């Protein structure tokens, strides 16, 4: 083939391409482009908001959304004490009649005043979904609006922790919405999103799973008390809050470093060094309690239908190994044998000695022999797509094997796991023996809140223990009138739960948050809130 005739065509093309590149960069790279709006907080939350109904779901992101746009009757302060929020309350001497008086100035985002009828409808819908609410409604004689601002709740028998349950911040707080919306069936999602909270939901800017925008609600009247967790005055100091979802954790970290966003709710521990080296970013622990990670056994099928074998499983496990594999840095986890969470009012660690003391595989092996374990494989479900749940199954599987269990660890995505854990079939027929999940500590601080502490068999949570004693102890807790009495029952519950191995607490961990340093006065609460915070 003859050599082509040389011309300057190639040089011209190269020059043209180079010129284009330079022009594009010059035109587009404007200075200081990265700064966010001074009146808007842009926050990357732990997950995308897809479900807007805070009653139908227990998803944390939806609960957090609930606290933005709805208000609650009562709220828990940082000492776990219920405080008035929308209403004050009085209790009759016999403990049977609770009277709630709405404070003045409460208005829904559509301009309508909040009335007692709205509160009644909202509480009724909540009572159909929430396990604590169901217990109250089991002993409810009547719940009615006595006048526009007064709600009277009459019980057939005393329910001492009623206000604690109403003030709880997880899993489902009783958010107050207009009666016409609250009349939606509790098993269908609501389609209007109007609350009376400090922020208004901007529906036209909502993109499910991508971004949600809130605007300050001008007519919101905050309480005068100092804010404390979910209680006290909710004073909003910015015009807008935008929650955006970033599926890639590295991108969120880069965006915060560059000042394109203001806040990351949860930072992966392995990415912390990048942010800690940035002088404009503050990395901190917002929530003093964090999360509890735990394992749940299936009581319906062998081998864990045998109490001794369940005890052997508990004895085989070592919290320190699980937590170290999950979090790495001991600064972000705590060995904790309390089923109600460490440092909480009901905390007690009876029965957790092996869990917190390094495990006892030899003791477990001996128990297995005594129980006559026949080598039935333990089907252990391992979610592979949720980063906070990938380590526990692997560490636990090895610990169980070390104690003499046959373990069949089955990897699957989280969606498959949540579907399969609802199956009551035998493990070799689509069922299971053990899985792991995590709870925010405020979700497990009381036997009325923790869904695991339910002994009603198939009516209860996955794993389905039938345990009359557990139900008796829960009833005792409901009857307890003082904190001391509650603590006494809680100790019995702790001992019973770990003796029966209702579930296996595997310790507590914390996910640090990160913010730009111009974001100040954030309230340190388990639920990230955007009142009180200032953007300088």
């Amino acid at each position, binding site marked *: 083939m003859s050599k082509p005739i040389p011309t300057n065509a190639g040089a011209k093309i190269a020059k043209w*391409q180079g010129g284009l590149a330079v022009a594009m960069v010059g035109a587009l790279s404007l200075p200081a482009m990265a700064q966010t709006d001074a009146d808007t907080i842009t926050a990357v939350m732990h997950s995308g908001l897809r479900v807007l109904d805070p009653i139908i779901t227990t998803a944390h992101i939806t609960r957090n959304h609930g606290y933005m746009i709805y208000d609650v009757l009562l709220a828990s302060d940082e000492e776990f004490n219920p405080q008035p929020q929308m209403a004050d309350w009085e209790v009759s001497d016999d403990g049977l009649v609770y009277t709630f008086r709405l404070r003045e100035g409460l208005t829904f985002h559509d301009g309508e005043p909040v009335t007692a009828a709205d509160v009644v409808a909202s509480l009724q819908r909540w009572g159909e979904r929430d396990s604590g609410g169901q217990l109250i409604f089991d002993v409810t004689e009547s719940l009615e609006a006595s006048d526009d601002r007064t709600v009277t709740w009459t019980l057939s028998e005393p329910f001492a922790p009623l206000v604690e349950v109403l003030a709880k911040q997880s899993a489902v707080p009783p958010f107050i919405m207009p009666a016409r919306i609250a009349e939606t069936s509790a098993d269908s999602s609501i389609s209007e999103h109007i609350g009376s909270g400090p922020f208004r939901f901007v529906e036209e800017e909502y993109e499910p799973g991508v971004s949600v925008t809130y605007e300050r609600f001008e007519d919101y009247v905050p309480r005068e008390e100092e804010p404390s967790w979910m209680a006290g005055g909710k004073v909003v100091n910015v015009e807008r809050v935008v929650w955006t979802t970033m599926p890639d954790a590295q991108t969120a970290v880069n965006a915060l470093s560059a000042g394109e966003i203001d806040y990351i709710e949860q930072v992966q521990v392995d990415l912390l060094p990048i942010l800690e080296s940035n002088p404009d970013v503050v990395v901190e622990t917002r929530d003093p309690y964090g999360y509890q990670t735990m394992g749940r056994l299936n009581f319906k099928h062998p081998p864990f239908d045998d109490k001794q074998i369940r005890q052997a499983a508990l004895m085989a496990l070592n919290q320190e190994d699980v937590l170290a594999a999950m979090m790495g840095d001991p600064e972000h986890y705590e060995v904790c044998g309390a089923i109600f969470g460490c440092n909480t009012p009901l905390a007690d660690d009876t029965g957790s000695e092996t869990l917190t003391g390094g495990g006892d595989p030899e003791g477990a092996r001996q128990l297995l022999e005594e129980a006559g374990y026949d080598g039935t494989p333990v089907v252990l479900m391992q979610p592979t797509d949720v980063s906070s749940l990938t380590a526990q199954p692997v560490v636990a599987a090895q610990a169980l094997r070390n104690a003499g269990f046959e373990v069949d660890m089955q990897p699957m995505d989280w969606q498959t796991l949540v579907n399969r854990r609802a199956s009551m079939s035998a493990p070799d027929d689509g069922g299971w023996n053990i899985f792991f999940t995590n709870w925010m500590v405020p979700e497990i601080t009381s036997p009325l809140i923790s869904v695991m502490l339910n002994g009603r068999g198939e009516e209860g949570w996955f794993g389905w223990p039938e345990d009359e004693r557990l139900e008796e102890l829960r009833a005792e807790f409901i009857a307890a009138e003082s904190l001391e009495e509650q603590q006494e029952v809680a100790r019995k519950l702790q001992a019973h739960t770990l003796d029966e191995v209702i579930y296996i607490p595997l310790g507590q961990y914390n996910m640090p948050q990160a913010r730009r340093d111009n974001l100040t006065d954030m309230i340190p609460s388990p639920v990230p809130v955007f009142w009180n915070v200032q953007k300088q």
Partner: protein
Amino acid sequence: MLGYIIRRVLAVVPVMVIVALFVFLMLRLTPGDPAAILAGDSATPAQLDRIRENLGLNEPLHTQFIGWVTQMFRGDLGVSLISKTPVSTMIGQRIWPTLNIAVLTITLSVLIAIPMGVIAAWRHRSWVDYAVMTFSVLGFSVPVFVIGYVFIQIFAIELRWFPVQGYMAPSRDFVGFLQRAVLPAFTLATIYVALIARMTRASMLDVLGEDYVRTARAKGLRENVVLFRHALRNAAVPIMTIIGTGFALLIAGVVVTESVFNIPGVGRLTVDAILARDYPVIQAMILLTAGLYVLVNLVIDISYTLIDPRIRY
């Protein structure tokens, strides 16, 4: 020609029916449950069952399928089981970022790759050719997220020329759109430049050896006229094919780039829907993707007749 187009469009119908049936059954046979996502971790089995009932997931499969197909024929893509938002609204929100980035990527790729390929073929076995080939192999082999992170580190974090992430609708702020779209578009373009440049080079090498090229040069035509008017046009059919299928791939499969640059596109929509088992969204997206491939192939076939008058249907 018109008859051909009508025949091709009609052929879409059985393709879509088969895709619809396949996708519907695949989803129902996959373990997972949108009711569980909706209800959260604490819901009891009884509560899940009531929600499932309300969502119509307890209906027999054939009833669900007929309901869905009837809805589709009315032009209604349904409502997301999770967010209760109409699927058409969700796709409408998410298709534009993907389309805009795809158009920018393809434009950049064509502008860069075709001259590169032409020069590489023209300077066959010279250092330019080897450089283009090396770039092609690299561009095609390095994972796209690595390129994305490297671009972010250099151009967004070190030099601060562009934002790290995000998307801005061009209708709202065109410069803002370009600022945010340049890095993802260049990231995606590395693969397509590699692909198109290679294809252009190979195709041009075939053509440059033809007699009519020698004749054109003998007539004293300028080299760029020979290269771009005579040779490139004859080499264009395989290049068009690769550009067309590349465009379809860009619409359907850029979820990693969308995640790295935080672009709210349809790739992420589909993946999120799959993880949440949001059946109506997944079904609509797969049908849309299938339809897009059929359409792109049709456009490519028609474009052949414009490039090469010898091709007739």
